[in-house]
């Protein structure tokens, strides 16, 4: 008998709707168990499996901890929350919705700052002049560190920001931000601009699975059926 698989889907919002619709088109009918807002569900079309409805960031954490086998969540959350992603889990299928970019954004008033190279020079100058580092407000600590290190920007420090990150520069909590944006309108409203080479990740919703279940025929079947549906889009 196959092991029971747990697949997690986003529990609310457009991610939930789009995920359910896509799975339905691939032949997986998903229903919540108990009342409409229940957190567990059944999945028709896959044997011996159950569904957990979780928030997108919980899905990334649960995948890391091995509490679930498969999950639909944002690529940004996977790359941010799982230290050695390839060892723990793999992205099986990009799902074609939930598009958003993780970007480096600086005040629009920094007319001289267009690239990461400018930012590197400004960070050195800022430190020499003020005796402190530029602060980057973000919830993406890992993505920020990796990207900045690769671009040679080391003279900065991160400030953890869990909400309304785009307001941090105006509030004097940070000089610049790393945040996720889909249309850029929130950034513009806060007088921030994305650096020319400041896109850290072009993210979208993905199906990801723990590495130890990738060989399971049910998982491979799911991957194939989702891919077939997506191809017709």
């Amino acid at each position, binding site marked *: 008998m196959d092991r029971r698989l747990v697949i997690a889907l986003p529990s609310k919002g457009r991610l939930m709707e789009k995920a359910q619709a896509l799975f339905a088109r691939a032949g997986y009918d998903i229903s919540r168990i108990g009342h409409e807002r229940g957190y567990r569900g059944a999945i028709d079309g896959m044997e011996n499996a159950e569904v957990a409805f979780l928030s997108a960031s919980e899905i990334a954490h649960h995948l890391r901890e091995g509490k679930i086998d498969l999950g639909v969540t944002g690529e940004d959350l996977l790359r941010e929350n799982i*230290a050695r992603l390839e060892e723990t889990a793999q992205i099986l299928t990009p799902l074609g919705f939930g598009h958003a970019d993780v970007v480096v954004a*600086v*005040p*629009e*008033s*920094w*007319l*001289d*700052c*267009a*690239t990461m190279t*400018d930012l*590197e*020079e*400004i960070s*050195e*100058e*800022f*430190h020499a*002049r*003020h*005796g*402190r*580092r*530029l602060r980057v407000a973000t919830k993406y*600590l890992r993505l920020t*560190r990796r990207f*900045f*290190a690769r671009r*040679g920007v*080391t*003279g*900065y*420090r*991160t400030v953890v920001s869990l909400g309304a990150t785009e307001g941090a*520069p*105006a509030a*004097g909590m940070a*000089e*610049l931000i790393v945040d996720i944006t889909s249309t850029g309108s929130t950034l513009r409203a806060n*007088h921030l*601009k994305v650096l*020319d080479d400041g896109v850290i990740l072009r993210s979208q919703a993905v199906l990801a699975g723990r590495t130890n279940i990738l060989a399971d025929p049910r998982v491979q079947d799911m991957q194939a059926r989702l891919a077939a549906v997506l191809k017709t889009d």
Partner: protein
Amino acid sequence: MPASLTAAQRKALQAQNRAIMELFESRGFEHIRPRILQPADVFLEKSGEDIRSRTFLFTDPDGQQELCLRPDLTVPTCRYHLAVAEDPRREAKYCYRGPAFRFHGMNDPLHADEFEQVGLEWFGHGNAAAADAEVLALALEAVRLAGLVRPYVMTGDPGLLRALLDSIDMPQRWRRRLFMRFRRPEDFRATLHAMASPDDGGRTSASNLVDRLAEAAEAGTEEAVALVERELETRGLPLVGGRKVEDIAQRLLEKAQDRRTPPLSRETVALVEDFLAISGPMHTCAAELERIAERAGAPMERAVAAFTERLALLPEDGGMEFATGFGRSFDYYTGFVFQIEADARGRSVTVGGGGRYDDMLAGLGGPDVPACGFGLHTERLLMAAGGA
């Protein structure tokens, strides 16, 4: 292999470290115990995000102050000195032994998150070359005392590159730009070659404004400030992010000036690249550095003379290497730096390192005081010396 030591290993470690401390104290270094809990700011501002990603950070229970477990004992020793010394400019010699904390997240005794560091720091000494030499000699004596037979010593001196750039005719901002990329060879080379190339390396979203400054023949600071003010006003942009109009204008102006600055000559690029290629046994390198100094001019000649003076004072040792490109991952070293490496459990590991950091005490709010010292990772030392 678990990350914690066995009782026998712990005992061997204590014996090793006691012996090293006795050595330091017998040479006039006072045994101090800086705080394990340190204000986080100091470390983060000194070291940048690279160290932050390895530092254990937390807020005190009142939610008032951000604290850290010290990732290193050099900064805590500097803070101790500034707090207790009657006159921080006067000479002081300290040694220490205690835990330091760096997150590695590996189950590996060579990369444990908590390790015991021994080391010493020497402030306000007279002759820098002599102090550098004595500090390195003491570090080598300490690792030999622990039983390390063949330490491999790598040395460098970021001050030499600074002197070389000072000897070359170029705008000060170009020197700054090159020097800050010293630790990243590819970026350094790309910057150097861009400075030698007549075109300015491509358009960016800031280029249009730079064009306007570059077109005005006599544009200076005033014109640049006026341009920035007009632009902010027209577009209704608030000035946020801690930089002044003058800071922004100055960089735009520099970009405009860069377009008019003659590129570096091929000879200059060759000089810098020949310098950066120097690496090998210290005595061989000294001869090569002298030839570079002849090509470069005065500031470099003085720096190389100091290098040679120090070399004469260093302990006679067959295994000492030097490389112009060698710098340590901590970014506060200003002069001579060294790293001691050895094989432990079939891997090459860094058992210690140190050097000169003359800007540190002033950067912590103290007076300008020369400083040098080193720290040893004692668990690695024990394993490399065969004691575990």
